């Protein structure tokens, strides 16, 4: 369990992370979602005590990270930059990490088997493919059999097989009762793995919600209506108490109702209807809409500089 409270990070005049508060709870995958540059990696580094916050704090199992005697037994992390010396073998990398936290050699062998690193374990990490490097990173994160896992963009650049492996692993780890906190800039990725979502933009918390709730609220479906007289259609709908807005090309986007009801309204008034189709917004669109302001803001900032 990790509690992030009012976490803030400043780089010069820029607020990289702005008063973030959320909780990473056990037994579920929490997706940490935001556009590139939203402050996800900075937040995760602060959660690990690598970067010092300007304000706020992070508690891991009720304690600040640096107060943990054997932190690898509480939190396992896979950082975006792999954090492995290219000249050292995978086995030796895991070995020194294990030694710092009093973890035995037997566990090193165990995690090597667990992630399927087997044959490559004595090769130097610099010769690893992206996928093998990621497996090594996961092995390091699992060394202390931690209750919390922090994974920063774990599927970035992986092939489909690697992506599927990581997804399954995250689901399994959460099913074992662990708290899995995984960052991504892709909503589609989160939709497949996360139970809970923490969405940030420009360092600010935009949403902290369960996945189903996020879908309900943000991915609202509508009915697209095309008619020769949109203004008359809109008046009919409004009179019937149905919300609608003008869409592109003289269409109307009508709040989710039975299409038949819209058809009946039009028929009763003798209005022709050319098209009547239910549309489901994708989660990606919902995410884009949610973070659009923060992204535009950023672009405008950049242009002004």
């Amino acid at each position, binding site marked *: 369990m990790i509690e992030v409270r009012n976490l803030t990070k400043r780089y010069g005049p820029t607020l990289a992370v702005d008063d973030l508060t959320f909780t990473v709870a056990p037994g579920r995958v929490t997706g940490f979602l935001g556009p590139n540059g939203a402050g996800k990696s900075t937040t995760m*580094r602060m959660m690990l*005590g*690598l970067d010092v916050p300007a304000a706020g704090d992070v508690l891991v199992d009720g304690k600040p990270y640096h107060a943990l005697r054997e932190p690898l037994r509480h939190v396992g992390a896979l950082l975006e930059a792999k*954090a*492995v010396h290219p*000249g050292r073998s995978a086995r030796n990398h895991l070995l*020194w990490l294990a030694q*710092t936290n009093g973890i035995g050699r037997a566990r090193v062998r165990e995690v090597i088997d667990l992630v399927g690193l087997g044959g490559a374990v004595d090769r130097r990490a610099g010769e690893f493919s992206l996928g093998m490097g990621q497996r090594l990173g996961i092995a390091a994160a699992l060394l202390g059999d931690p209750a919390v896992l922090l994974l920063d963009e774990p599927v970035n650049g992986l092939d489909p097989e690697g992506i599927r492996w990581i997804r399954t692993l995250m689901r399994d780890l959460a099913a074992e009762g662990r708290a899995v906190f995984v960052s991504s800039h892709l909503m589609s990725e989160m939709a497949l793995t996360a139970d809970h979502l923490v969405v940030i933009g420009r360092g600010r918390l935009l949403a902290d919600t369960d996945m189903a709730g996020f879908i309900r609220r943000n991915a609202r479906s509508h009915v697209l209506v095309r008619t020769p007289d949109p203004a008359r259609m809109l008046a009919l709908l409004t009179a019937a108490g149905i919300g609608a807005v003008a869409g592109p090309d003289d269409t109307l986007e009508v709040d989710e109702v039975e299409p038949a009801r819209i058809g009946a309204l039009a028929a009763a008034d003798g209005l022709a209807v050319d098209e009547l189709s239910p549309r489901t917004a994708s989660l990606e669109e919902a995410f884009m809409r949610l973070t659009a302001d923060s992204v535009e803001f950023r672009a405008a900032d950049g242009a002004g500089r």
Partner: protein
Amino acid sequence: MTTFPRLAAAELTKIRTLRSTAWTLVLAFVITVAFGVGVSFYLSTTFDRLGAESRATFDPSDFAMSMVEYGQLVLVVFGVLVVGSEYRGGTIRAALAAVPRRSEFYRAKMFVGGALAFAVSELTVFVMYFGSQAALGSHGGAITDPGVFGAVFGTGLYLTMIAVISMGVTAMLRSPAVAIGTLIPFFFMVSNILGHVPGVRVVGQFLPDQAGNQIIFRHYPTGSVLGPWTGLLVMAAWTALALAGGYLVLRSRDA
């Protein structure tokens, strides 16, 4: 501190499992001993061709020990690599996530790096001394001659501190390339020049290597305001300063 032994074991693993760090220690030994013994052997075969004055003032200990100048370069590289390897591939993030109390991390790293440098330096200077005296044949001296043991042992301390200063400076600079680019020119040019230019010479004598390297000679050739052991003490102060500076940077910077 119960965690110290395990942190020290991890640091030893790190040094042992990188070719670069492990081999620089071997190289420091091989280069120094090879130079010392080789040049001594060469001198022993040509000793009679030296001028009368050179022969009269020849000191077998001073002659042999002056060869450490070549090995010390490798110890600078060792010191830089021990700390600098943390800054390759972002290893430092894994290290500090595993050991978040940075003072404990730093203490273990510096202790292990320093202890290894000490062991290898002393082994090197003593093997080199005995080897070169044997190679000098009838012109060689004995470890029991006045001041010789102190000079040889002290030279090992001097080499250790060269490595530890390099470790501290690298922790300040956080990059092996920048550290090498700073330390090698400093130790082998700037400091040497300042130590011999009239006017600034007295100041130059207080620079870490200039202060420390008088210990190498039983008879220091130039008039320095510092004696061999006070010089070594000045160097120890520099070493403490470099270690403190490295710690301050590690403590205050985001990883």
